[in-house]
């Protein structure tokens, strides 16, 4: 009889994380079991902002795109201008369906002239295969073949340097480079989902344990911590990175009319390049540009300290609501009550004042509170150290 594995998969770092696990709180991410938190989400969050946090992002979907038309394929697939994506660089990008609605976002690594890696949340083999017609390109899903760790936080540079990554100092944000480690190649990119100084390590699963151990040895004196998804989720709201499935839905998974979003509606205008003669969604997006968008994603700074998850948003109290909050948190590092929300355009101009209706429960009974909110520009958390090259040592 053939045994079919039905349970959640374990990442190459599972054993090491399990050894540090004091909570036994795990969930499913893309078929793998991953921790919500390992000992305390709050402490793990402060490792991101004050020391070094290590997050296992092996379950992230990875696609390898190679061949003479690999660039042309991506150029037609993605909405953004890719011409500045040199070998050794990483670009954030979104891709759209024919209606100009965002299917997913992700990062594109240019590993060589005709060799790219695309990392994203969703599975898109079918869409990529459909989009590959007419291009001389090979697309392979390599999620299970590449283990990955995010090493994030103000001391992350020093930890990695101490681990033996010579020359890391010159690696600029959104750049990647191969380093020699333990006699083997290790790809390091200066990228992350925390909005802080940080790196991502891309390696073969067989290297996983030795690299984990070396990393934690090197970080022992600088507060290195393994973290779960809860801490990461808070830090990404502060950095105002969008989370697919939360702040927008994969367009190919929505059923109801109007539940998907265009790049414009997500505030990603800078990722749409009409200078390109053709890309998926171009015709629909050009129409939207002419006729106006329906929604606008906004960053809200809300008065008070009650987080506003799932809150309705109003232009004025007592009127019909104009939208809703998709992500919200009290930001410990910014000391701000922050949220990402979707409102009907043309509401949500930078600097305008909106109201959110915050719901909270006190001993079973629900309460609500109207709170003033300001639409702000840019990420809530965007420290200088994120960009400085070389990064400051600790």
């Amino acid at each position, binding site marked *: 009889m053939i045994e079919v594995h039905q349970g959640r998969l374990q990442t190459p770092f599972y054993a090491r994380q399990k050894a540090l696990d004091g909570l036994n709180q795990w969930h499913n991410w893309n078929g793998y079991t991953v921790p919500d938190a390992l000992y305390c989400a709050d402490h793990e969050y402060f490792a991101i902002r004050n020391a070094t946090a290590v997050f296992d992002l092996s379950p992230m979907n990875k696609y390898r795109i190679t061949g003479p038309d690999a660039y042309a394929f991506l150029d037609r697939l993605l909405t953004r201008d890719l011409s500045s994506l040199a070998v050794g660089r990483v670009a954030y990008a979104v891709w759209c369906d024919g209606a100009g609605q965002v299917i997913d976002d992700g990062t594109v690594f240019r590993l060589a002239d005709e060799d790219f890696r695309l990392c994203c949340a969703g599975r898109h083999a079918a869409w990529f295969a459909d989009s590959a017609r*007419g291009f001389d390109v090979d697309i392979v899903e390599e999620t299970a073949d590449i283990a990955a760790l995010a090493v994030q936080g103000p001391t992350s540079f020093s930890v990695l340097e101490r681990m033996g990554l010579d020359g890391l100092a010159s690696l600029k944000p959104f750049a990647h480079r191969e380093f020699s480690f333990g006699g083997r190649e290790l790809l390091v990119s200066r990228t992350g989902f925390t909005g802080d100084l940080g790196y991502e390590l891309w390696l073969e699963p067989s290297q996983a344990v030795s690299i984990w151990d070396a990393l934690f040895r090197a970080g022992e004196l600088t507060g290195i911590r393994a973290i779960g998804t809860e801490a990461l989720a808070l830090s990404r709201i502060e950095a105002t990175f969008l989370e697919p499935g939360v702040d927008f839905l994969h367009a190919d998974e929505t059923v109801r009319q109007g539940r998907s979003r265009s790049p414009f509606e997500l505030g990603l205008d800078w990722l749409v390049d009409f200078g390109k003669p053709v890309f*998926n969604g171009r*015709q629909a997006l050009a129409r939207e540009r002419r006729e106006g968008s329906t929604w606008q994603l906004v960053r809200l700074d809300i008065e008070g300290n009650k987080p506003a998850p799932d809150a309705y948003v109003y232009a004025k109290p007592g009127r019909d609501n104009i939208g809703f909050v998709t992500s919200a948190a009290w930001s410990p590092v910014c000391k701000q009550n922050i949220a990402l929300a979707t409102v009907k355009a043309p509401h949500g101009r930078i600097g305008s004042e909106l109201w959110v209706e915050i719901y909270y429960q006190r001993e079973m009974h629900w309460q609500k509170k109207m709170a003033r909110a300001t639409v702000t520009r840019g990420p809530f958390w965007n420290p200088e150290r994120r960009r400085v090259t070389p990064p400051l040592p600790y």
Partner: protein
Amino acid sequence: MTERYDAIVIGAGHNGLVCAIRLAQSGKRVLLLEAANRVGGLAVTEEFHDGFWVSTGAQLLHQLQPAVMKAIGVRVPSVVERMATVVLAEDGDHVRLLDNDVSGPASGEAAAFAEFRQLGLRLARFLNQQFLRRPPRFDGDTRRLARLGLGLRLLGKADMRELLRLVGQNMHDEVNARFSHPLLKAAICLDAVTGTHTGPRSPGSVVTWLHRLAGQDGAVSQPAGGVGAVSEALAARAVKLGVELRTGQPVDRIVVDNGRVAGVESGGERFESWTVISNADPKTTVQRLVGERHFETPYLKRIHHYRSDGNVAKLHLALDGLPEAAGLDDTDFQSRLLIAPGEDAIEAAFNPAKYGEFSADPVMEISLPSAADDRCAPEGQHVLSAIVQYAPYRLAGGWTDDARDRYTDLCLQTLSRYFPDISRRVVALELMTPVDIEHRFGVYGGHWHHGEIGLDQFMFTRPVVGASQYRQPLDGLWLCGAGTHPGGGVSGAPGYNAAEAILELEQRR
């Protein structure tokens, strides 16, 4: 030095010709490029053997739109205006059909036949109104949608109900609900499936029948000089109107510059125009002439899945005299002769084709153009032309010479059952498989309607959703061939409608 034209039409098939004429009538400077050395595409009459001429593609006219021909000022005389049909019986007890009349062994069902045919004609007239204009889009095309709805409503309650019932119906069930004589049922079923990859039991095979009835109001005609004479007449008209017509000039590619069409390249020459209209089928146009990278994925995917594998072979025989046949007199040879012993026999012929095999017992629509038109063959001799089904484009093992010989033998065996001396009379023969049609006429899959006619590729969805109004999602690129609404058959409607759409867009700008 390159020249700029108001429009370039690729392919001087009948639709390309009609489109070019209509544009030239409006004062446009039109260049019409044809790969072959003669005009006509699949509406062409050629000498396949010394002194023997045959209409290589379409053999008769069912759907040529009088309104289109009138608008462009072309008249084509017929040698047979309303052709009769003889459904052959091996024992010579044939069923004869002409318009609404039935004679022969099925004559007892004449009233039922007349009723059904008249219903078909009423519904086909409604369809034909739609065929002479652009189909509506689903979004924001209220005026056209309303006109479609109104036309439907004006059919009256009874006919509207019948149309809605028949839209998804299969012809096998429909004829069995109405008739009993197998040859009568077979005649209707064969007309419903000729030229398609469907059998009588396939859903939607009533609509294909209605499609065939539209245009000439149910009449089948034989133009003087063959179907190619239509194309010749169109070409003469085009040239007279100033269309620059070049034959033997295959287009290598459609030039795209910065996201819009800028002209075509042909044999090292470049012709410039902001409007390029392709009379080639949708797949050939998009995948070969333009190139897939110039389009967005969803459109490409639809074009990729556009059903366009041909399933029809064409048999041409040069005969040293009329074949003998029980129960046929000489004038009967001026009719369409059908070989289809029953509706189930057609379905049985279709079955192997679903799995990549040709029919063991093929069914045929036969014409002998020389019987009414002595230009087609040397005196006393004749040409037999037959549409033979089924012959799948993707034959298992491929259309090798051996496969072609085997199928030719099968066809001759079938013919011999009705014309015992036929093999002895054959002076020359030619069998064109879908692969041959693809190579000779540049039609993807060798489908002579440039793609299946079925509910999924009809009106709003022909060739594909979102591109059914001739204009394709690349600035300056248009389709005008049988792959667009209202589809195949020698009708001229796609070409005419495409030209109208181009002129209308220009006016709006």
